[in-house]
């Protein structure tokens, strides 16, 4: 796993007198034992310590959804949670879902439906979709809108995201932007 080299960031924590907590978590199927400063955010732990940079920090206050990961089977915001709070948890990030190469079927729907532009918010949406699939959310249920309301996308206008998400959940009818030539 990346990020095992000492960095000035880590050494500085060690030099300070701040209280640290031992955590044992399972990240993408691998056990991780670490000593973390009590106030270290989970998003920073995953990105800076473990090098898992697929999750993005967009607001650091739980409003935009770009940092969404799956914790114990539920979509959760890693930017408003402390690493210490994750003790004992099973954490899934996009790196843990990626196939060795290429795209899986959910990712392919996003590409085919042009459901991403800048791509900064995309890993967060994907993690929510994986959580929905795990819970067998029906593509036509109101729950879909509730899940999607947890994410901001500034580029796509959401329409293609709706299409891709519904297809990923197994919808049989597609809603596409009508195009007249």
């Amino acid at each position, binding site marked *: 796993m990346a990020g095992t*080299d000492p960095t*000035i*960031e880590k*050494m*500085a*924590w060690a030099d*300070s*007198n701040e209280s640290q907590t031992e955590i044992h978590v399972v990240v993408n199927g691998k056990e991780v034992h670490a000593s973390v*400063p009590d*106030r*270290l955010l989970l998003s920073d732990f995953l*990105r800076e310590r473990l*090098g898992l*940079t*697929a999750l*993005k920090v*967009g607001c*650091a*206050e739980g*409003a935009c959804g*770009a940092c969404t990961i799956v914790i114990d089977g539920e979509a959760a915001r890693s930017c408003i949670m402390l690493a210490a709070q994750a003790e004992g948890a099973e954490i899934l*990030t*996009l790196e843990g879902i*990626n196939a060795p190469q*290429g*795209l899986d079927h959910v*990712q392919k729907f*996003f*590409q*085919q439906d*042009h459901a*991403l*532009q*800048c*791509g*900064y*918010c*995309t*890993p967060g949406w*994907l993690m929510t979709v994986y959580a929905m699939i795990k819970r067998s959310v029906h593509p036509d249920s109101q729950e879909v*809108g509730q899940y*999607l*309301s947890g*994410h*901001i*996308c*500034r*580029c*796509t*206008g*959401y*329409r*293609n*995201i*709706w299409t891709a998400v519904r297809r990923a959940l197994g919808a049989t009818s597609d809603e596409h*932007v*009508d*195009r*007249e*030539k």
Partner: protein
Amino acid sequence: MTEDKIIYARPPRARRYVGDAVLRAEDECLLRGAGGFLADIPTPDAAEICVVRSTEAQAVVRAIRKERALASPGVIAVLTADDLDFVDDALPCLDMIPGTLDARQRVIARDRVRYVGQPVALVVAANRYFAEDASALVEVMYEPLPPVTDHMAAMNPGAALLYPELGTNIVYQVTQHDGNADFAAREGDLVIRRRYEFHRQTAVPLEPRGVIASLIDNGERLHVESCTQLPQMLRTVLAGAFGLRLAQVRVTAPRLGGGFGCKEMVYPEELLVAAVARKLQRTVRWLEDRREHFAATTQAREETVDAEAVVAADGTFVGLRLKGWANIGAAFGLVGNTPITAMGAMVRGPYRVPNLDAKMFSVVTNKTPLNVLRGAGAPQAALVMERLLDEAALSLGIDRAEIRRRNLIQPGELPLDRGATGFANANHIIYDEGDYPRCLETGLNLAEYDNFESDRKAAAARGKLRGLGIAMYVEITAVGPYETARIALQPDGTVLLFSSIMPVGQGSETTQRQLVAEELGIAIEQVAIRQGDTDEVPDAVGTFASRGAAVGGAVGRMAARELVKTILNCLAAELNRDPADLVWEGGGVSIAEPAEGFIPLAEIAARLGSLRQFEGAKGIEAKYRIHIPKPSYSYATHIAVVEIDPQTGRLEIPRYSVAHDCGKIVNPLLVDGQIVGGVVQGIGAVLRERIVYDPEGKLLTRAMMDYVLPGASDAPADFKISHMETPTSFNPFGMRGVGEGGSIGAHAAVANAVADALRDYDVAVDGSGPFTPTWIMEALSRPLRDPTLR
């Protein structure tokens, strides 16, 4: 090379890429979370910077005490203006026309602060946590002065001055005339006078800004990585700021997580982080957090416009007289005077309106500097014109579509000179080819305009208020003055395009590869692209004003055309043939008698690979510099249908239609994506978003929780798009820009639809709102309008 090695074959039929909905190749890394955004770049040795920002809107800085901060854990340095060396500490402004006063921002406050969020000091520490801790311990002694936040009040005699040495807060003005500027109403003419107010907004790309600076090449060069739409300009500014030669500065920009104009700026932090790297001789990083972003990243849109329209009894507009004032905040943005200039330049859109008398001003106030946001000033301009058309239609009893028909410029009148603009980079607006009437009729058909009254009645039966709004615009796109590109044949037979267009989400990697593949007749997989490195493309203009595909794509394609010439010359020399015997077709070279045959590009690369020209830096490559003397003008019709629940004030947009013409389309999938995304941004702008300052100049909207962006439920349920593709003669490949239009049309279409839904109530829709549920409930409490007036 001997004759027998030539592959005798016919050239394959090349696939056509222009106009094809090619899926984006860049999606693969983005969907795997490996986009390589600035914050993802590993920087294990970097110290982190936290910027100490002004908490005062207007104050003299008496002293800055660093002692407590320096004693804080993990702190490496605390730096103020006195510690940093700049040869030139002014940030650039590109639209300072003659007579403009110098309200350029300085990179860091010296003795005075002018807005909340202005950089005052820098804390360098081992990590962001320690840097933030210490930044709270930097003691800045302010002597507060009275602030001014309202731009109209800032023009009053005796108003507090931001720059006392200038003697005024009005720092820029431009006059725009066309036809007879002294026009007056004649008997029987309708005169409409309105004041339009546009509220302050901000772009909020999901990726905040960030800068990494280091010294490279044995410390002899400065390397700055930044989230910028303008790497080449940043390099020029950095060199000037530190007195370096251009070659001593390298700027790289990774893929951007959205820009929308707010990264079309040279920011204080880009120079400050570089200055720290030079001062401390080490790699440093600054990542903007969202709270900073609201105060420190340029804002947009705020202006007031007084309009007087003279309209003949048949609905034809005789003339427009406008006076507008932009609230540009505390200092110039890079193009901070552009939005208000666009009001006068572009207000008339596709409508003839033969006489124009416009005067526009920029006013400084104690707010964050204003700059462009998707559409620059065009959304405001379209809203003014389209509201006036609806008001005139209502007063004269003319159908809203019909009054537009009577005012539209006809295809036979194009190209058309629309008069002086005042823009620094375009003297006159000259509309290129197009068919505005057909665009209107297409939009009306898409929206089923003729059936709308029954739609309205059906909604009323359900207790809902439905309204329809029409808006058209003409937009400056694909601006010059020039752009450059380089393209190189690789030993494996692929080609590598070095482009100055930044990937901001618009899909520039794919569209540019499509254009090169089409030009060379090769598979798109054989075209690679690199972007955002001034060592690779030192001289270029950048990514803004809907110019990426139309200008950046054109220059890439022209460079590919040049590459063919280079290849033919090299191959002719190798074969000892006259270059005239060689013809490029189908992704390779066909050779005329006496040795007929076809050599595909991969084979050419393999053979020429042994040539001396292919070795070292030179290689087989071509450069191109394209000059674009005249921008081209995209146009569209937007029709929004809104539905208001009078019980709650909730507003939904059940239907939205767009008929548009951006010239030759490279990739319809991506064009649709730009339109829908732009429209939803425009919807958010007029229904939800608003930057709020209190009267003391303190910013109240400092988080996404305060600044409500459109969400997944705000996407119109039924969205129709129709493409017209009238090629423009102002671009070698007939392309115009499309990135900003969605936002432009949506402001005006939604505003008109809101006014239409509330037509029974005595309420004015004179600006951009935002038309929040609170605003709507207040409107519904107004008395009913005299029904004879509608």
